[in-house]
């Protein structure tokens, strides 16, 4: 890929946009770009990055998962109550429960899409309310507060390793794993194929339904993982945890150039899309704009991004092939 073409990619445009934004903020508020603060911004965006990667895989297969925030809330509530009941349970076990439960909830979505052919948007709109409602049923609407959680439970995501909190390291680990999965494995290629052209994928011997099921399971597992990290980091669990966060997750993907019709998207794009929203969210209070602006800004960003995506899709044509060529 030549340098000029590289600069025209969505990833490069986003990176430049984020750099410009940081430069603009830094010109008035230099403290914002201090390394310590940038680490804080990244750490704050880590949940969005992890969820956006799971969502991207689902969207790649021409589906959508609107239940991620509800999965996060239900898993978060379950592990918080588990911690309340068994304070001595090690964090490793908690992590395993969170990932397994999230994966299970994602598999329910995936099975409904795979075996019953129900449109993903209907399935996940339904499970979104069911999962969050279940969080209410098991908790009775009560909160699990900081003083009720064990110290080890709360300390894990904040622990520092080489100057970065564990939460950030987990995000980086997920980024690396997803990058390998999508570019180096058969399953990863199947995600692209199932969404890029389901008919062709079927003829190529890929089980499209099963691939979608795997995508939902992965998205659910990541949402479960974030469920624990979120509850532990903010040291509180309640029913409305991360309400509406699924929209930010979809927004990060769309901004990152993931095509909603499937088959197009990259790990770098989704990560930069999430960072774009994360920088805006963290910058608003610094530049003295009311946080109430955030919702409208992400809405506008989604619309602008989807317009750009459509334009790019028209001119660039078949992305899958080109990526496959570049990967060789």
């Amino acid at each position: 890929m030549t340098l000029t073409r590289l600069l025209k990619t969505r990833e490069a445009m986003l990176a430049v946009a984020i750099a410009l934004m940081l430069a603009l903020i830094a010109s008035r508020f230099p403290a914002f770009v201090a390394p310590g603060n940038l680490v804080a911004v990244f750490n704050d965006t880590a949940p969005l990055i992890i969820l956006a990667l799971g969502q991207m895989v689902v969207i790649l297969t021409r589906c959508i998962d609107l239940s991620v925030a509800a999965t996060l809330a239900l898993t978060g509530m379950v592990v918080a109550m588990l911690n309340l009941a068994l304070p001595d349970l090690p964090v490793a076990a908690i992590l395993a429960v969170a990932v397994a439960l999230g994966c299970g909830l994602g598999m329910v979505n995936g099975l409904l899409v795979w075996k019953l052919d129900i449109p993903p948007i209907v399935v996940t709109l339904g499970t979104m309310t069911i999962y969050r409602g279940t969080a209410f049923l098991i908790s009775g609407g009560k909160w699990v507060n900081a003083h009720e959680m064990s110290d080890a439970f709360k300390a894990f995501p904040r622990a520092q390793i080489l100057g970065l909190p564990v939460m950030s390291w987990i995000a980086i680990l997920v980024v690396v794993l997803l990058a390998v999965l999508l570019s180096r494995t058969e399953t990863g290629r199947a995600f692209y194929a199932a969404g890029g052209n389901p008919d062709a994928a079927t003829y190529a011997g890929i089980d499209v339904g099963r691939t979608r099921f795997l995508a939902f399971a992965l998205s659910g597992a990541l949402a479960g993982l974030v469920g624990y990290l979120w509850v532990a980091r903010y040291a509180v669990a309640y029913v409305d945890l991360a309400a509406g966060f699924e929209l930010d997750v979809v927004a990060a993907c769309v901004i990152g150039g993931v095509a909603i019709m499937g088959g197009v998207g990259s790990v770098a794009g989704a990560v930069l899309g999430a960072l774009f929203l994360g920088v805006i969210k963290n910058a608003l209070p610094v530049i003295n704009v009311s946080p109430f602006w955030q919702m409208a800004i992400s809405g506008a960003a989604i619309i602008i991004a989807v317009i750009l995506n459509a334009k790019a899709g028209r001119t660039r044509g078949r992305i899958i092939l080109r990526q496959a060529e570049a990967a060789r």
Partner: protein
Amino acid sequence: MTDMNLTREAVRAIPDRLEHPARRALKSWETLLLAVAVAIFIANSFASPYFLDPWNLSDATFNFTEKAMIAFAMALLIIAGEIDLSVASTIALASTAMGAAAQVGVGTPGLVAIGLAVSLACGAFNGALVTGLGLPSIVVTIGTMSLYRGISYIVLGDQAYRGYPADFAWFGQGYAFWVISVEFVLFALFALLFGILLHATNFGRAVYAIGNNATAAAFSGIRVERVKFILFLLTGLMSGVAAVCLTSRLGSTRPSIAMGWELEVVTMVVLGGVSILGGAGSIPGVVIAAFVMGLVTFGLGLLNVPGIVMSIVIGALLIAVIALPRLWRKWRG
């Protein structure tokens, strides 16, 4: 949404002989739904001694009239193969505009005009992005869902608008005669209008044609993009009518008004037998679905079931009504 499901296009079997119309009507989704509605009605009247009171039943209608009015327009949009997830946010924006106008002393006719104009503009913006730029409606309206409600949050923050003129309360709190509320009359009127539009006009046929095969419809001389644009306008407009009714009923506007209604509206439409893939559905089905959902929520309310548990029931209903026929077909081979 249409080409999301190319692989699922089942081969259409053409029967040698059609069944008798009465037999077909008996086996239809609407009949099944009606039976469910009657069953819930009877169950409710046994479950709570307060259920059969005419005023209580009248109160029960407020659970669904506003949502159903949006659902009629949404049904046409979904039949045509598109979707609008921004309806609840459109209510928020229209209500905020009405609230702002009421603060400077605009009278009731002016408020209604402003509410409808803002929601029409919201629908036009959605429609222009989808039909003009050829963008997928689901992403566009997820975007405008954030945008419209986001603007309400910018305007209102954590504040609320009150102080609507006294006669503005007529839409949401007035009664046409005895226990029949103004909202219920509007609901019946729009049910009739949308029923005629979908089932008895060229426009309605065009909506079905587009939902079944947009390319074939275009080659048959249907202006696909224009019909879709009009449907987005209608959905926006009906969100405006709902905004007027809801604002009038609550007497105040917060940016969180009608939060999550898009889910309930879509559920109502799908429960009413409209295919989420487009091309099939009816207004009578949506009307019965509205009653079913209203009766379920009201009955559960009388039994002191909390709202979030009702939303579980609604979510499960949404999946079950689509899953059960498919399971049935699978089981029968």
